[in-house]
């Protein structure tokens, strides 16, 4: 196998990985920091794609579409958090009910999308400024994929900076560790959590809008992406952005090279990777085990 093929396969895998990371970064925020098991995160991804499709049809501008995808998904996410998810927090078996509730969101959003936009596939095209391709020596990479890779890097740095270097981030982290205590210090924790949920679903929506030119927009795409993003979040360790980035690249590259060497079994490799990781590191790759207190 020639070197060029390997390089272009690697770059292909990297842009898939970054799309995956864009979805997973929102999920890891909800899952790891807000402590909500949001099964419907993929549906916000799908909603983002549909909103951007609609906005592009109206305004004929890709960037307005991307903005509409993010804001639309974020607003809906926040409304759902305030109306439903917040109201079941603190219950016994909270996790199971969260799964159930967000599973219901999946069903409703999927059918809602079918109802509004119809079951047929939709497509949007890349923005003209990014439609070309970049050729370096023997390797060619579409500019749009390069942009996705850069966007992923910007998001991971921003998220890391906001969460660990700003006052807001500290409040969020503290609220995630001890909700009651932070509440007593005069912080409106439920508002913080709603905003966090909104930001996370907006990230999902943005990912959907960004992925739309490379993939098709259709009902059911949210369900397809959720399992892959859950894998990334779990491998990376809940709430860990750098971990999610690494896991996304791992999954993306394993798939990209799996296609070359094991074409028939490539689609199973993500699950195999997660199983191997969890068997050896029971809390994901980048979570420190806190002593031994297991029974």
């Amino acid at each position, binding site marked *: 196998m020639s070197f060029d093929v390997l390089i272009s396969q690697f770059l292909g895998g990297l842009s898939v990985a970054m799309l995956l990371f864009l979805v997973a970064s929102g999920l890891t925020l909800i899952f790891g920091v807000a402590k909500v098991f949001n099964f419907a995160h993929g549906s916000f991804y799908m909603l983002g794609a549909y909103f951007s499709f609609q906005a592009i049809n109206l305004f004929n501008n890709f960037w307005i579409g991307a903005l509409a995808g993010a804001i639309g998904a974020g607003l809906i996410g926040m409304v759902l958090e305030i109306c*439903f998810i917040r109201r*079941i927090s603190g219950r016994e078996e909270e996790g199971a009910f969260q799964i159930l509730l967000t599973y219901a*969101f999946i069903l409703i959003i999927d059918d809602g999308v079918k*109802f509004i936009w119809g079951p047929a596939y939709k497509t949007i095209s890349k923005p003209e400024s990014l439609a070309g391709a970049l050729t370096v020596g023997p390797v060619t990479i579409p500019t749009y994929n390069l942009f996705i890779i850069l966007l992923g890097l910007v998001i991971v740095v921003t998220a890391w900076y906001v969460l660990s270097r700003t006052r807001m981030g500290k409040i969020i982290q503290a609220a995630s560790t001890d909700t009651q205590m932070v509440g007593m210090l005069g912080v409106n924790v439920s508002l913080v959590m709603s905003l966090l949920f909104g930001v996370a679903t907006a990230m999902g929506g943005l990912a959907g809008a960004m992925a739309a030119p490379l993939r098709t927009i259709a009902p059911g795409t949210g369900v397809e992406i959720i*399992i892959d993003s859950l894998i990334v979040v779990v491998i990376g360790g809940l709430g860990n952005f750098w971990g999610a980035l690494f896991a996304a690249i791992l999954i993306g590259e394993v798939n990209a090279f799996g296609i070359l060497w094991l074409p028939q079994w490539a689609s199973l490799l993500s699950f195999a990777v997660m*199983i191997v990781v969890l*068997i050896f590191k029971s809390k994901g790759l980048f979570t420190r085990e806190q002593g031994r207190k297991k029974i």
Partner: protein
Amino acid sequence: MNHRLETTALWSAYVLLFGGMIFVKNEHAIHIAAQIVILGLFAISFNILFGNTGLLSFGQALFYGLGAYVTGMIAKKFGGDHFLWALLLVPLVAMAVALVLGALSLRLSDVYFTMLTLAFAQLVWGITIKWYDFTSGDDGIQAIPKPEFLAGGLHYYVFAFLVVTVCLYLLWRLHRSPFGTILKGIRQNPTRVNFLGLNVFRHKLLAYVISSCFTAIAGGLYAGLDGSIHPDMFVWTMSGGIILMTILGGMRSFFGPIIGVAVFVLLEDVVGRSTQYWSFFIGAIMIVVVMLFPKGIVGVSRQFAGLFAKKGDPLEHS
């Protein structure tokens, strides 16, 4: 209503209702009833793990599909006369698989356990689809033969009903046994169970193996129902559906899950025929259940019955 009365009432209702189906002449109704008892066995055995022990597995479809494929593939290859012993083989295969997967996944806590069970089931689903020569892949297996005396909707229903009833009786005895009580203890306070000198991991593993074994029997029974099985029996939406039905019925009650299954299957039959937006309605119902009736149908009935009772909180039973 006291607990003993409730149990007697539910057992009699089960036997009368599903036993009485034998006298119903309607093929469609019998088919629906067969689906309810088979999925009911799946849901009740799942609830041994979930409602009793507090372990949320998102991969029980693995054992449902396993039972179906063991039965289906043997019967398809060797002929209908081998259907019964294939069905007998199912629990053994399932227990062996569950022992290995359980030992690997039960070391993990909470969400990681859930995700690992999900990954195992998805992996098996993928293998079933891709390994065309062995499993005939995405086509599934059609026209699975059965022995003569099980041919026809009614005969097969009687058979399935009897098998399920025996299984439910065994599971019920287990539920009421000291072992069942230990499982409840593990859900409520594993540390304490450990201090009592009991091995928490071993009990969890046993619960996992038993639950998976009965789930696989349900899958084996399903293979004979329509004589048609598909890899989608392994997929995560199958496990998800069972979780929903269990919570809808009531996870703190032995019979709750099968009530959830019955409501779900009947709704699907009625609503599914009149609208294509069936999952929208399911989603809406689920939201109502989660927000307003988290104890499920059985929980609501207990609350209602409690209004007429003299004393005690009816919700305390589990």
